[in-house]
C-alpha cells in the first residue's frame, strides 16, 4: 500500500518535472564562449561566480558577468547557484574587496550579456533560456525552481 502511494507521488513529481522541462519560460541558460564550459558542474559555477575559480582548464582567464542585482533572473540565478540573494552576497563581496577581489562585472540587460559573452574570450554569463536558444553556446540549463535540467526545454513562446 505504502509502495503504491509512493509510486503515485513519484508519478506526480515526474509529471511536474516534465511540465517544468517543457516550459522553457523561466529556465535560465548558462552561456559561454564556444570551447569553454563543457562538463561544467554547479559547484564549478558557484566557484566561478564567487571569483574563487578564475581560469578555464585551458588556462584562459574566466570573465564572469552578472545582471544587475534587482533583475529577477539574477535573483533566481544567485539563489540557485550561490544559495543566497545578491543582497545577501553583499557582505561576501565587501570581505573579498578587502582582499582585492572584485565581483563579476555587471551588464544591464540580457541582450548585452548575449553580445558580451559571444564577443569576449573566456566569458560566462546567463540569460533566459528562450533568449539564448539558437543564439549562444549553452552549457547548463537551470529550471525555474533552481534545479538543473537534463533535457532541453521544449517550447519558448515568442
Amino acid at each position, binding site marked *: 500500500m505504502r509502495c503504491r502511494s509512493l509510486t503515485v507521488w513519484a508519478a506526480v513529481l515526474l509529471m511536474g518535472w516534465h511540465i517544468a522541462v517543457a516550459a522553457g519560460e523561466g529556465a535560465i541558460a548558462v552561456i559561454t564562449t564556444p570551447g569553454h564550459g563543457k562538463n561544467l558542474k554547479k*559547484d564549478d559555477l*558557484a*566557484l566561478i561566480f564567487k571569483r*574563487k*575559480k*578564475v*581560469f578555464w582548464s585551458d588556462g584562459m*582567464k574566466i*570573465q564572469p*558577468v552578472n545582471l*544587475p542585482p534587482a533583475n529577477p533572473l539574477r535573483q533566481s540565478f544567485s539563489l540557485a547557484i550561490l*544559495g543566497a540573494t545578491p543582497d*545577501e552576497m*553583499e*557582505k561576501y*563581496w*565587501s*570581505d573579498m*574587496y*578587502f*582582499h*582585492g577581489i*572584485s*565581483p*563579476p*562585472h*555587471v*551588464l*544591464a*540587460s540580457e*541582450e*548585452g550579456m548575449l*553580445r*558580451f559573452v559571444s*564577443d*569576449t*574570450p*573566456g*566569458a560566462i554569463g546567463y540569460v533566459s533560456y528562450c533568449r539564448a536558444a539558437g543564439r549562444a553556446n549553452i552549457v547548463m540549463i537551470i529550471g525555474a525552481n533552481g534545479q538543473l535540467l537534463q533535457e532541453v526545454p521544449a517550447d519558448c513562446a515568442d
Partner: protein
Amino acid sequence: MIQSEAMRKYKKTAENGTIKLFHLRLFMNLRARILLCVALLASSGQVLADEPASDDYQLGRGWKIPGTPIRLGGYASLEAEKDRHEPFKINASDVSLFVWWEGEGKFRFFSELDLEDALVYEDGKNPTTRHGYLALERAYADYLYSECLNFRAGKFLTPIGRWNVIHAEPLVWTTTRPLVTERAFPTNATGVMAYGTLPVGDREIDYSVYTALGEDWRPDPKLDPFEEALGMHVTVPVSSNAEIGVSYANFSQHGSNEERKNLLGMDYFWTHERYEVSAELAYRISDEGSASDESGLFVQGVAPLTDRLYVIGRYEWYNPAGPAPAMNIGLLGLAFKLSPAMVFKAEYIHASRNTVKEPEGVFTSFAILF
C-alpha cells in the same frame, strides 16, 4: 584586459550608431522626426543600458585606473571615545590605501598602507599628528595555479580566526576589537602561503598553510612580530549559512624568540536574514610553562532592528599570560549602515578585573570603504 577591450568596443558601437541616426534625422519630416526621436531614445537607451556598469567607480568597490589593470581603494575611520581610563578623544584612526593589480595572467599583486592615528584630539590638548604612523599592513604577490592551490609571498594578515583577516572598520560590527583576535598572536606575517578551495562533496573547504620566515617587513613598533611561524587555517561550511574554522600555529616572536608557542583556535560564523552569530576561541600554550599560557573566547550576536540599524551584543572572556586573573568583557552596541560601504557605530563596554587595560566606556566611530 580582454574584458575592458570588449567593453570599449560596445561604447564605440553605441556612439557610432547614435551619430549616424542623428544625421539621418535632419532630412526627415516632423512626424518621422518625432517617431525617429522616440526610436533613437529607445535604442540609445538600450545600447547605453547594455554597457557594462561595474568599471565605473562604485563606493566600496574601488577605482580602476583607466587603461591599466591597477585598482585603488581603501577605507577610513574616525573614532570618538570616552575610555574610563583616558580623557575624551577624537582620532582619525585609519586611512588605509589598497593598491592592487590583476592582469590576464596567473599573477596578481595586492598592497595596503595604513596611516594610523593620523590626527588625534584629546580633551584639554591641541590636536596632534605626532601619533601618526604609516604601517605596511600587507604587500604580497599571488600565483594563481588553480582554485585548489595558489601561492602567496610577502606580508599578509595572519589567518587565525575570522576577525583578523577582515578586520577593516567598515567590515566589522564594533569599533573595538575582541582581545582574542589580536593579543594572542602577531596579526601580520611575512613569508609564504599556500591556499585554495577544495571541493569535498557539495562543500567548499577553504584552507591556508603558511610560514613566516625571518624579519617582518616594516614591523609596527607597537606590535611584537613573528620571528618564525608555521600555521594553518581551515574553514568548513557546516550548513548553507554557517561555517566553522580551525586554526593552528607554532611560532616564536621577535621580543621573546626563545619562547616557543603553540596556538589552537576555532571560529564560528552563522548568518540568516541579517541575523549573525560569530565566535572565536584561542588557546595558546607556551613551552615556558603554564604561567605564560594565554587563552580567550568571544561570542557576538547581531540582530537587525530596522532596515539599516543593528544591535550588537558581545561577551568575551580572556585569560592573559602571567599572574593576572582572567577578565570578562561585555559589550552592547548599535550600528547604523548608511550603505553597504558606510557605517556609524556606537558601543558601551564594561570589563571586570581589567588588568590589561582593555578599553572601557563609550566608543563611537564612522567608517567608510572607498
